[in-house]
């Protein structure tokens, strides 16, 4: 019996940039793909690059032929498509963010459970050796009682987006890159923290800079995210007896300070590209469909992060930006309207 088909749904920048390299290294998997996009020319182009089986404009056209699906669409479609597929018994690997709210994640979890259909989520940072080791050290008590975590991640947005969807949802950097970081904070804490403070730079649209503080027991976790400028791109984890400091793009090592001494902890030798971690998820999807492995990251795993992000948006307040508001000095009072 031949291996079942898998739908690759969404042929935008995520598919082209993150998944294409990994799929090219897995020609057996690529040949089983049905490439789906409402823009059939994009689907055809990606099919040609992959040597994929077929194309379609709508995933619903190919449901009888598939046992699994990669959901790589714009963010707002992740939830409805994943839920629909899970309810039809099709195993899904969905890009982050999985959903807008914990209630939506619960619907997916329920569909997954009642149809015995695993739902996997791409939270690559959970796979990084450094992230895993930091979590282990925290929970092992290697730095004493956890006190504070700081994470900052920012770079000018330069994603080769095929559509303006990133800026039309009203949810920006927190929902996008923040999905990784908030999930990581929850995972390290081993809990769903409360939102202590949240502010962003939305002016009625989609935020590009966000600052948040989360609290769990006596621990505060701060994150600073930006689509507009390059930040330090570092993290620090402070405990009562030590500190862990690392780079957001250093996936295999960090610095551990304990007992007054600092040392570099190299968790893994060698080097892997980001796409290699996506490749791990692709392999996991194939194994999960064949019932030979458990999912690396499930919908239930990411529920806390989704809930925290939703709670952040619920208490959104504007960042103080005096340079933005300076336009008021330009015009006499009578020209102003409420837009500012």
């Amino acid at each position: 019996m031949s291996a079942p088909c898998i739908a690759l749904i969404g042929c935008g920048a995520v598919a082209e940039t993150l998944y294409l390299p990994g799929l090219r290294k897995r020609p057996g998997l690529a040949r089983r793909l049905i490439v789906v996009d409402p823009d059939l020319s994009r689907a055809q182009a990606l099919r040609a690059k992959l040597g994929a089986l077929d194309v379609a404009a709508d995933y619903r056209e190919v449901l009888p032929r598939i046992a699994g699906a990669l959901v790589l669409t714009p963010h707002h479609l992740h939830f409805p498509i994943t839920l629909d597929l899970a309810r039809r018994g099709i195993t899904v690997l969905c890009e982050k963010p999985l959903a807008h709210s914990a209630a939506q994640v619960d619907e997916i979890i329920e569909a997954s459970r009642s149809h015995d259909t695993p739902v996997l989520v791409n939270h690559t940072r959970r796979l990084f050796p450094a992230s895993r080791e930091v979590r282990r050290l925290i929970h092992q008590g290697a730095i004493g009682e956890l006190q504070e975590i700081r994470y900052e991640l920012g770079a000018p947005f330069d994603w080769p987006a095929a559509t303006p969807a990133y800026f039309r949802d009203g949810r920006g950097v927190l929902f996008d890159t923040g999905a990784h970081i908030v999930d990581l904070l929850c995972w390290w804490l081993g809990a769903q923290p409360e939102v202590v403070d949240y502010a962003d730079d939305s002016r009625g649209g989609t935020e590009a800079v966000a600052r948040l503080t989360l609290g769990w027991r006596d621990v505060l976790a701060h994150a600073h995210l930006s689509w507009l400028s390059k930040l330090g791109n570092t993290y620090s984890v402070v405990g009562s007896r030590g500190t862990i400091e690392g780079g957001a793009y250093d996936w295999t090592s960090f610095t551990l300070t304990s007992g007054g001494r600092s040392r570099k902890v190299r968790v893994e030798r060698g080097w892997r590209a980001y796409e290699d971690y996506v490749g791990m998820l692709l392999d996991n999807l194939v194994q999960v469909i064949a019932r030979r492995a458990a999912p690396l990251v499930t919908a239930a795993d990411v529920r806390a992060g989704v809930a925290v992000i939703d709670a952040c948006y619920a208490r959104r307040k504007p960042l103080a930006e005096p340079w933005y508001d300076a336009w008021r000095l330009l015009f006499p009072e009578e020209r102003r309207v409420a837009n500012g």
Partner: protein
Amino acid sequence: MADRTILVTGAGGFIGARMVEVLHAAGIGQVKAGVRRWASGARIGRMPVELVPCDIRDPDQVSQALRGVTHVVHCAVSATDRETIVDGTRTLLEAALAARVRRVVHLSTVAVYGDAHGEVTEDHPFASNGRMYGEAKAAGEEAARALAARGLPVTILRPTLVHGPFGATFTVSYAQRLQARPWLVPASAAQGTCNLVYVDDVVGAAVAALDADTRPGEAFNINGPERPTWNEYFHALNDALELPPLVAAPPSQSHLVSTVMEPVRSAARMLLHRFKPQIMAVYTRSELARRVMKAAEARVRNTPSPYEFSYLGRSVSYSTRKAERLLGYRPRFPMALALPLAAAWLRASGFVNPSFQQSR
């Protein structure tokens, strides 16, 4: 105001994005934010304005973007591509004429005057200093005037050195340099005129030009309210950033480093142009390579070029009397007001090293 729909080209750029922010926030009209790539939409996506694809080299895209538009502010530009500046401007303005827009404001630059000296008014002849940008913008103005002669109500603005939040050249770059000691610009080498204009004043001038019933093709210098020396600007920015006092290296050392660094700068540019993928691959894989490249990049960035020394010493003042008279232009952002705003943005955006500030 409500009957206006304003297309801003280059809406993802430094000036274009601020134009969109202010036009929207102040309710000057409905704004269509034209971008060449969706990736440049992050800053303007913060407001509920319409993002439209508008590569000014593409006549079909431009015509589509101009649908329903009554006014245009043309900010799109390229630092490296002459065709975008010249042919793109012509394409946009041809389409604007066909669409019968009521007014186009075309952002040019005082670089069209070349390396001018003394008091420069709008009738000063254009000159070349051998740099692509000024020459291409001069050609772009010629295209605008040709369209004006055919009836397009276009107003040309020639801003001086635009600074402010998100400004890479005169704000970010100098803020970074001020933190990289030794400071390699001796006071004696920076006595030329610093014709800075805050980005919001450029926006104010554009709004005034949208309103003013000036003759098609009329051009206006747009400058700030002061004419400090470059040295005064550097010290004022240093103070606004609360950095330790500036102590300049001796002139002989500065000029020597600048001269020595010039071939390094050219070689780095050439290597990056020809071997960028390979260089980035090494950069990503090797921590040592990353450290070396970052240090080299910082050294090149923080060393003034010989050309820079030439303009830091040049005495020139671009007059705004014509803009004041015909547009009612009033620059409202002197350094005392503008630099704290820029500094606040620089700090919030991670451009200021907090430990350096604390050592003050």
